[in-house]
């Protein structure tokens, strides 16, 4: 009789060069019956530059199960779900008819983020997966696996990790993206909780490696609040315009708290100077940008209503409004604290303000009301993301040219004010979790670094070994088999990685029309090859609309399609430049040729 085996496979997330596209499969194969049970942790997207790749993003190969556990609501962990609903539409339709459903196990905030994605990608509500809300500290069972969710700290609320116990008793802890500093909203990291879980035994510990090359422990929002208050003191007599990533809800709380505390301190100073007592009047927090409004709705839906929280914490009433509201327009400019989208200089709120194209926020209008000499302060409360340096710098330059006083923190040198905290574990945080497991787990723990480039993962391995744990690095597409806490084998599926390329042919986020390609990526040569195109059934539409109402023009009309095809045949051979331009368009024939070529190469390699 064959032995029962527990397996783990990285479908994405252990990428050689880009962080993202997380998808981790946990399986158990029963030695007696041969039955294989699988669950998946996360199904996210991998961002890319469409001009370079021809795709909007990539997602890992489709999960081979109907239960997906989600660690948190960032796109690189949930962004594949809407596309999964497209690609498995027919199969899921049949399953629903039998009373079976795709189930997403997640916390409330992650559910709100997933719903937002499903709506935005045009997935009809009738097709949505079932949401099973998980709560840290409350174990549950899925497909034969015992699951224990635990709270961790990250830059988005309600982030969790999981201990997954296979039917053979193998216990695997996956941290999700984490740091150990405390977070202001919801539950966060708790040493004691991790120690309690470790006491039951941890055989494998899958650790987020993203910031592992940073020394010490990642700072928390408390330090950001201090930095923000310092900068607020320098910003008197004029409006403040700030940039924040929308889902950084802890940062929104930090801003609100800093504004409230600054108002209290200002009021105290007035009293000390002999002025009559008055209620502290914080600046009005004005949100500008669709993603920020949606994030606030999600926060309110999950019980994170900032006005109530700040009132409880400080006793101060703070106003938070959208930039198009009457309250925003009636607030004197020097009492405004704008929070805007577009921290990296992309086509969003901040850039529109800098270029005089924002319909709600105008530097000229503020100066007309507050005076030509009124200072306008512009602060980016998010560090520059690698790859965005040029846009980030250009954005700051535009504000400077418009006469604003700016503070855009650098990613690469020490900053005067701390206005940003990462959500990822630095070396000190990694050491902390390794130490807890080493001290509490009654059996040996093997660390598997995930979610980081090779250098970051190597650093986690080093830290694990320094804390008396064994460690092993696996790239994507590797299946690791274990018996209890012993790795018995691992198999490299292929040297090249397999991804699904997502291409919105409409290039319109409001009416996307997706094409999905199977894409092979060679990590050594960095070459991507389209090997096939997925066929999928489009989402049903209302009877009065045409079935392909959202399709790009050349896809709608079959007659026109044939004509185009005929014209193509008559045309002279296209240049390479033309082909590059046409790359984003789906071309089944081309895919077939490429697929044949790939097969040829594989055969030549003896695969």
């Amino acid at each position, binding site marked *: 009789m064959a032995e029962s085996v527990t397996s783990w496979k990285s479908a994405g997330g252990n990428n050689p060069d880009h962080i993202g596209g997380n998808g981790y499969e946990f399986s158990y194969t029963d030695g007696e019956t041969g039955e294989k049970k699988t669950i998946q942790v996360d199904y996210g997207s991998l961002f890319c530059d469409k001009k370079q790749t021809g795709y909007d993003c990539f997602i890992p190969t489709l999960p081979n199960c109907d239960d997906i556990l989600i660690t948190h609501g960032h796109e690189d962990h949930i962004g594949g779900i809407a596309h999964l609903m497209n690609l498995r539409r027919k199969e899921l339709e049949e399953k629903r008819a039998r009373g079976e459903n795709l189930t997403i196990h997640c916390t409330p905030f992650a559910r709100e983020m997933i719903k*937002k994605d499903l709506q935005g990608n045009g997935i009809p509500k009738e097709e949505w997966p079932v949401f099973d809300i998980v709560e840290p500290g409350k174990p549950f069972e899925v497909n034969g696996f015992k699951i224990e969710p635990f709270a961790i700290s990250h830059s988005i609320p309600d982030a969790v990790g999981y201990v997954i116990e296979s039917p053979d008793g193998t216990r695997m802890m996956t941290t999700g993206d984490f740091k150990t500093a405390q977070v202001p909203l919801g539950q966060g990291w708790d040493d004691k909780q991790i120690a309690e879980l470790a006491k039951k035994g941890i055989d494998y510990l899958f650790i987020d490696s993203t910031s592992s090359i940073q020394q010490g422990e990642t700072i928390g929002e408390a330090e950001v609040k201090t930095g923000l208050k310092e900068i607020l003191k320098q910003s008197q007599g004029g409006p403040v315009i700030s940039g924040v990533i929308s889902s950084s809800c802890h940062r929104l709380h930090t801003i609100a708290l800093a504004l409230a505390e600054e108002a209290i301190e200002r009021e105290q100073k007035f009293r000390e100077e002999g002025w009559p007592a008055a209620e502290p009047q914080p600046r009005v927090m004005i949100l500008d940008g669709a*993603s920020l409004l949606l994030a606030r*709705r999600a926060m309110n839906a999950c019980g994170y209503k900032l006005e109530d929280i700040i009132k409880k914490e400080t006793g101060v009433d703070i106003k938070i409004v959208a930039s198009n*509201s009457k*309250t925003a327009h009636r607030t004197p400019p020097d009492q405004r604290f704008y929070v805007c989208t577009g921290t990296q200089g992309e086509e*969003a*709120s901040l850039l529109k303000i800098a270029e005089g194209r924002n319909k709600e926020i105008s530097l000229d209008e503020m100066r007309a009301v507050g005076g030509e000499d009124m200072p306008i302060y512009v602060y980016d409360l998010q560090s520059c993301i690698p790859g*965005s340096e040029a846009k980030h710098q250009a954005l700051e330059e535009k504000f400077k040219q418009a006469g604003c006083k700016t503070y855009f923190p650098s990613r690469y040198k020490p900053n005067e004010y701390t206005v940003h905290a990462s959500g990822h574990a630095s070396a000190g945080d990694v050491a902390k979790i390794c130490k807890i497991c080493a001290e509490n787990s009654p059996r040996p723990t093997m660390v598997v670094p995930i979610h980081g480039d090779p250098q970051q993962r190597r650093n986690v391995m080093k830290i694990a070994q320094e804390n008396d744990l064994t460690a092993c690095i696996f790239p994507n597409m590797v299946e690791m088999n274990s018996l209890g806490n012993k790795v018995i084998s691992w198999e490299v599926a292929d040297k090249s990685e397999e991804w699904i390329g997502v291409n919105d042919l409409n290039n319109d986020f409001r009416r996307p029309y997706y094409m999905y390609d199977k894409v092979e990526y060679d990590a050594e040569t960095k070459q991507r090859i389209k090997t096939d195109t997925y066929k999928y059934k489009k989402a049903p539409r209302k009877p009065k609309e045409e079935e392909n109402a959202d399709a790009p023009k050349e896809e709608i009309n079959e007659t026109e399609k044939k004509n185009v095809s005929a014209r193509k045949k008559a045309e002279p051979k296209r240049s390479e430049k033309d082909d590059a331009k046409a790359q984003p368009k789906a071309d089944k024939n081309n895919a077939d040729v490429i697929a044949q070529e790939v097969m040829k190469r594989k055969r030549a390699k003896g695969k």
Partner: protein
Amino acid sequence: MGLNWSDIDNLAQELEKRYPETDLSVLEHDELRKLVAGIDEFDDKTVPDDDTMESVIRAWIYIQFPEEPEKVGSGNID
């Protein structure tokens, strides 16, 4: 033919025409139902569920603030 709750985009456009200063970051579902009932072309007596109403608000938000959704994840954020 009148508008109904499944005409998400059309409803959002009509709402923006009539109530452009609405603060959608805090608009309650009860209030949305009242605003929708005020649209002359609206002709639907069914009671919408929360997800349908959120879909209308979401579509309306993107009319007020026409910008691509932020792609947020560790690939582009700390």
